[in-house]
């Protein structure tokens, strides 16, 4: 699997986690993170593709990028902004 182009504080593998799992794992990880930390979530769940960006917009963090490190896997890279 290809690594991220971003500097990541913590990567969560939520592959195999069923909706709304990956989003919930991201939220939990960000709660425990420090402002400025970068958290990445790996997900194969199709709902995440729209859920995670929508939540990041609403929660006012920063979506640094959405990568495709492997087949049917997306990596969502989020910086905790507040």
């Amino acid at each position, binding site marked *: 699997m290809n690594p991220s182009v971003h500097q990541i504080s913590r990567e969560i593998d939520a592959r195999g986690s069923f909706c*709304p799992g990956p989003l*919930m794992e991201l939220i939990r990880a960000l709660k425990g993170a420090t402002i400025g930390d970068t958290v990445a979530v790996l997900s194969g769940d199709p709902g995440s593709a729209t859920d995670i960006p929508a939540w990041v917009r*609403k929660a006012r963090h920063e979506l640094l990028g959405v990568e495709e490190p492997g087949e049917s896997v997306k990596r969502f890279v989020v910086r905790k902004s507040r």
Partner: protein
Amino acid sequence: MKSGNGSGQEKFALIVENGTVDKLMAASILAAGAAAMGKEVLVFLTFGGLMAFRKGAMNAPMVLPNEFQGMEQHLAKIMREKNVPHWLQNFQQAKEVGEVKVLACGATMDMFDLKRDDLEPIVEDVVGVARFIEVTEGAQILFI
């Protein structure tokens, strides 16, 4: 619970009237999504929906709607394979990520002689319809 709209937070209410697993799953995912997106979520359990929240919900047999009768084992297998969480776990996760209140309908409690203690601890309070209408003022309300 606030009544009126002093807080400015959008409210999202679900009336869960049915205890079949498909509806409970849908309700639980909607509650989790709404909570994640910063809504104040109010879940009002009535009739079959409330009965599903009796203690031991995690291990209670899955109830399917008529068109899926006989498919319980098949569905249970799919859910295991795909790591589908139990709907009660989704409601619990919803509480972790945002503001969620689970309320029981007083009429249903009365009809089936239920006590607070018969219900899963996630159920926070017993209310009547007027109180429900009061606390959901300004809310989007879904009947499931």
